[in-house]
């Protein structure tokens, strides 16, 4: 078996003294579509923030390959972070920059590419997410669904190894969310990117997700990990009823 791309060991997450989740241990493998599940407020976004190096674990570790993130030097941490693409819940595009500049910023910061090359990359990435020709729009001038797609283009700018999504379809109409959904899958298929996402609303993602972790708000720890399709059949009651939307088991 290949070594996991992310491994979480005995992770406890807390805001000052308030423990959100404790004793989380799971692995994400290369090429996985990994879903973080759980009720509202149970700590999914918080877990995601721990996985992308924004929040330091209270105890336990988050490692990428062999590298324990919080044991690494700041420079090494920055190196690791550049392997991630993150799509935040509301897109988090930089509002003072145009879409083109948003995609360009990581490229300008971390590559020595020429202006022409950067311009070509911007055009490609925006076209991939269906926003060709929107280079000079500001985030405030486009719709919510378009913002998320633009943010996806930015997240892909550096060809990340792992893409992280926080509730990508939240706040989108069914059609836009379906499009985003398809887009994510196509990206995985064509680029082989590992995908970690928080969601409970993307049926077709569920269909292809091959790994997951389920966080429970009452016991404040994970109650299951594994393929959601298996969990839907044989998981603990809480998980099965969650996956069947509360239909009687």
């Amino acid at each position, binding site marked *: 078996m290949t070594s996991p791309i992310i491994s979480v060991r005995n992770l406890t997450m807390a805001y000052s003294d308030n423990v959100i989740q404790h004793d989380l241990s799971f692995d994400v493998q290369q090429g996985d579509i990994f879903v973080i599940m759980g009720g509202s407020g149970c700590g999914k976004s918080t877990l995601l*923030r721990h996985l*992308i*190096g*924004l929040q330091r674990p209270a105890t336990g570790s988050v490692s990428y390959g062999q590298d324990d993130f919080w044991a690494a030097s700041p420079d090494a*941490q*920055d*190196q690791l*972070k*550049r392997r*991630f693409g*993150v799509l*935040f*819940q*509301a897109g*988090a*595009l*930089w*509002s*003072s920059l145009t879409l083109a500049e948003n995609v360009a*910023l*990581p490229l300008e*910061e*971390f590559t020595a590419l020429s202006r022409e090359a950067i311009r070509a990359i911007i055009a490609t990435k925006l076209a991939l997410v269906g926003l060709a020709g929107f280079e000079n729009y500001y985030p405030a001038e486009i719709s919510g669904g378009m913002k998320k797609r633009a943010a996806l283009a*930015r997240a892909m700018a*550096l060809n990340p190894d792992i893409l992280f999504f926080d509730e990508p379809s939240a706040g989108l109409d069914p059609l836009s969310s379906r499009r985003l959904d398809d887009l994510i899958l196509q990206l995985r298929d064509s680029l082989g990117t590992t995908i970690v996402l928080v969601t409970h609303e993307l049926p077709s993602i569920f269909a292809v997700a091959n790994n997951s972790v389920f966080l429970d708000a009452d016991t404040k720890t994970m109650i299951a990990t594994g393929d959601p399709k298996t969990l839907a059949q044989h998981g603990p009651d809480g998980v099965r009823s969650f996956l069947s939307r509360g239909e009687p088991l």
Partner: protein
Amino acid sequence: MNTPPPTAHVEFDRQDTLLRVHCSGTWDWNSPQPALPDASAWAGLTRVALSADEGGDPDGALLAWLLGLCRVAAGHALSIDTAGLPSGPQKLLALALAVPPQTDHPDDPNPGFFESLGKISLHVWSDLPLALAFTGEVVQGLGRMLRGKARFRRRELFWLIEANGPRALPIASLISFLVGTILAYMGAVQLAQFGAQIYIADLVAIGMVREIGALMTGVILAGRTGAAYAAQIGTMQVNEEVDALRTLGISPIDHLVLPRLLALVLMVPLLTLYAGVVGIIAGMLIATTVFGVGLREYLHETVLALSWTHILIGMFKGTVYGALVAFSGCWRGMQCGRSAQAVGEATTSAVVTSILLITVSASVLTIVFQRLRW
């Protein structure tokens, strides 16, 4: 059909361990609500049965009253029978009682005066280490900048310079002119008693150039720029834009704070100088038109009074105030919570912090320069 009695009415009927509550009449929010039974009345009960007339609750007042009653009953561990209620209120009551109320309340949003005062004091005290930590980060960022490792967009810097330099000129002109006028008047009234009006020139020149120009510029920037910085960065916090920078390994300090600090530190000495000149012109107008000082004499006296020391000290003070304003604005912005209200609070506290720091440093600097006899 008899019309229901006009006002809300409740009958309590106790039968052994059962309390029957019958509500009649038309309930509305404008008439006083009947009182709940007092604490002693609940002892020994096990069950409450509710009933009410059909159509007596046009605007939800009865439902609210029943809900209050049920909460108290639940607090005494009584079982509640709603079968006697009309079907509408019965279903609504079932919905409202389905989930028990949250018990660990957040802090009282309307604390009393002394509680607020205490909280603010604790807040200021606990701010201190945070301010020091932020200062440390900014100093590290400055180190990176000097080694050419901190990168930010040059266009952003130019934009910030324009927004906080040239665009501050109108308000800086107005305030400095008025302050120069006031200074000249105040001084002249006293000096004229000795026939020494000519010294208005010294008073205004040294006062404006060395102290007040810098102070006024600092205060203007606190309101104008400090607030804007806090709002800009605070909004970016709310939208997770700052997190988006961090996840790319781009330091928000380098990218957001340094250009803002640099823009102010570059612009403030010039603004201070400008404020001094405008103040001197205002003083000159007053002295020559109102107090009969000759224009040539005034200019001559101004030149005699001013030394490079005064000019440089003024510019130095201005720079310090500008840096403090940029620091406060950026710091409060970076500290901002994740809501629109938090942005408002960040803005306010940026201005308050700026003015506080300016005042303290003005006193310290004045004393230091006095001691140095500069």
